[in-house]
């Protein structure tokens, strides 16, 4: 059983692409596609890592990240943030809120895999 990753993303095609790449690399992949119950899903599924989109229906990725960092059980959870809004202020925002990594869409598949390996050493 490989490491467990939770992908929170609302764009079906992107979910499919990420799931395929990570599964092929040996990850166990769970997905979730809206914001308002994302934190509960994280708490219940206890993944080793979370890939989090910023623009989600229901609740923004920043709010979810803030929430996660405030909870002792998820304060140290590695979180890779993805956003299609590639401005500097978005990157600063993510880093200030405690994102482990920040990547801009579109991304290179190899970069995503490398980042995950760094965040969760085998």
């Amino acid at each position, binding site marked *: 059983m490989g490491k467990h990753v939770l992908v929170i993303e609302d764009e079906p095609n992107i979910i499919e692409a990420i799931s395929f790449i990570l599964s092929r690399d040996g990850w166990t992949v769970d997905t979730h596609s809206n914001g308002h119950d994302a934190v509960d899903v994280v708490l219940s599924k206890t993944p080793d890592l979370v890939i989090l989109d910023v623009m989600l229906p229901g609740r923004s990725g920043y709010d979810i990240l803030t929430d996660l960092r405030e909870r002792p059980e998820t304060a140290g959870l590695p979180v890779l943030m993805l956003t*299609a809004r590639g401005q500097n202020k978005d990157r600063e925002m993510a880093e200030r809120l405690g994102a482990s990594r920040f990547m801009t869409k579109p991304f290179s598949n190899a970069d995503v895999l490398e980042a995950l390996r760094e965040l969760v050493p085998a």
Partner: protein
Amino acid sequence: MTATLNLLVVVCLGYVAFLFLVAFAAERAALRGRGGWLRSPIVYTLSLSIYCTAWTFYGAVGYAARSGLEFLTIYLGPTIVMVGWWWGLRKLVRIGRTQRVTSVADLISSRYGKSTLLAVFVTLIAVIGTTPYIALQLQSVTASFASIAQADPNAAPLEDTRQIALSVAVGLALFTILFGTRNLDANERHHGVVMAIAVEAVVKLFALMAVGVFVVWGLGGGVGATLARIDASALDHWQVDGTRWAGLTFLSAAAFLTLPRMFQVLVVENDDEQHLRTASWAFPVYLLLISLFVVPIAVVGLEIMPAGANPDQFVLTVPLAQGQDTLAMLSFLGGFSSATSMVIVAAIALATMVSNHIVMPIWLNLTGGGAVMSGDVRNVVIMARRVSIAGVLGLGYVYYQMSGGGAALAAIGLVSFAGVAQFLPALMGGIFWRGATRVGALVGLSLGFVLWVWCLLLPSFGAGVVIPEAVMAQGPLGIGWLRPQALFGIEGIDPLVHAIFWSMLFNTGGFIVASLLSFPTPLERLQGAQFVNVFQHSARPQNWAGGTAQSEDLMVMAQRILGPGEAQALFQDEAQRQGLVGYLPEPTPDFLALLEREMSGSVGAATAHAMVGQIMGAATVSVEDLLAVADETAQMMEYSSQLETKSEELARTARQLRAANEKLTQISVQKDAFLSQISHELRTPMTSIRAFSEILRDGGALDPEAQAKYAGIIHDEAIRLTRLLDDLLDLSVLENGQVNLNIRTGVLAEVIDHAVAATGVEHGPLKLHRRRANEEVMLETDMDRLAQVFINLIANAQKYCDAEAPELTIAVGSRDGQLLVDFIDNGSGIPRQAQSVVFEKFSRVSDQKAGGAGLGLAICREIMARLDGTISYLPGQSGAAFRVTLPLAQRLAAQ
């Protein structure tokens, strides 16, 4: 005999031409600013010599021949004024300059509250009083012509001396008009004329002295012999009449000040008060020189001329009789100079008064004052001057004709003197007595004028000419005490002294009594203070010498105005400079002047002066001080109201700038949000495309099914990207109003058909309800754009209608001239809070992914605006409901 009349005329014309040249050169020099030498004290003194007219030149000898030394009184009066009263003259000149006085009438009217009535009255008296004098000059010139003509055997006897008088009058009028009305100076100065009369003053003095020298050394046999002749003559035995001497001296002194022409040269033409200093001794010397040879000429003339010869012409006839033609010619020119200079200046002075106080007010009344606004007043004034000059000379000529030219020169002169002397009480009272009022001046002038006319002017025409002899002898209607030369039954006085005595007594008395009984208007008070205190007001800064020391009060006041720190520093510095310990210095005049200067920076000079003055108690605050304070206060109020306006303007501008800034910020925020949205919308499909294309590129164990699926996703996302870009470009074009509409005629049903087909509703789950009968409406619009709107609305229903059996109803109707097309589905509709933003760019209502970028409704709104219609959300329906409206004006009846 070579002195022909023709030569005389030529010499005369030549002399006048020379005067023209002098006047012209002086005007030119003054115009170019090189006229400094024009205004030397000597020129001023010489210009005063217009006091010595033809009457002096010819008449003094006649006077001496008839009445002995009495002629000296005519010179005595002005000499006393110049030597003993120059300080009074200085005041008169200072007032004239500070008040910009143009004539004696102007001065009196100005002093008594700018009274028009007084101005007119004074002008009339001046004209009446001066006319005989001008006639006198015409007469003397004519007589001198006649004298030379008689001595010329070749010349035909003069048929009509009046013709000479007329041409002289016309010639003088022309000269005066030319140089007296060339320009309209505010101060009424005439450089050319003054220069010309100064030259004439030299000519007449030189001529008279030349004749005198000839008489004493050529005929009289030297000084000793001439003195012996005088001793032997009857002249020595004439008694000196004390009252007549006193009366005449007073009269000439008064006339020297009040004659319009004397006022003109003394005050109006004065350039510099300092010139009075020179004139005060130089003019008496001039008078002395011009009177030096009068007695010798008279005595020798009486001896050598045949009995019955007119002594008024001795100056001319004695050289003629001796064959001294050149000397006679010079003498003639001297007399001519005396006459012309007097007439020119008198005409200017009178014309100024007549035009300023009579012609202009009448003209302004007639034109309703509207002309003041237009530019032609200047021309009217100059025209009025010219007409007045011609009128004054015309009057003189008429008087000359009426009087027949017979009366003795001196007698006419004295009548004039007595007339203008009536101005004296009002003039002197005006500049020395603050209590003098307008009513007083009017009463005094009226009484004096009436008595002068009755006692002197009318009788001067001769008994029986104007006043019947019976009235002269018994009084009007037999009332004895009203006899012109024996008022109140007092007889036996010389008629001239009698007239002077009564007219001046009633004039002065009436002036004083009426002034005491009447109240001055505020303007009179103000003008009175300005005139009487002219030296205090025009000579600032004033010293507070002799004030009692009140340093502490000064300190209190200064602190209030300058602030405690600065005031204390100022006082302490001064105390140290004075060698005192502490803060309080002695209030020396220097320190008070310094304090005034310091304070005037804060409160204005006049206020500072008044405040210091009040504390020092050295001077009461004058009316002018108070007015100046009021002026400054008004200025400050004006200034502060300007500041207020300015700061209001600034505040308004600031508000506008803030509003503009807010708007710009808002636009900037919107732009950022828009860019951010576009970035998101573009990056999302690109993410899928990149990810799947990398998966396909890397190959590996990928089953064909997945391969086909992933290629399909890439294809769809590429299409989605293209559509997004199309929408963005479409929206941009619509928003900028650059869209080209293709207006055609068509039927609404066909547009809906086209939209339905394009969305492929028939093949989907959405069930469509239409009533085709209602849709048979002819339209004239852009069919493709309208179809684009319908496609959007139908596609939205396909994507977002969340009913289990989705239905869409398209209903057509009309209301208030509008065609209505409603699209209503049976889903859950759009939440109330989202309804307001549904037409904004990138707004998305539902959570679910429907592939749209959120630009569709924004584009619809822009399209409908271009088609003069609207699109709106229709609340209150079961599902999502949109209403499209188009103006019915574009709808044509179907079929």
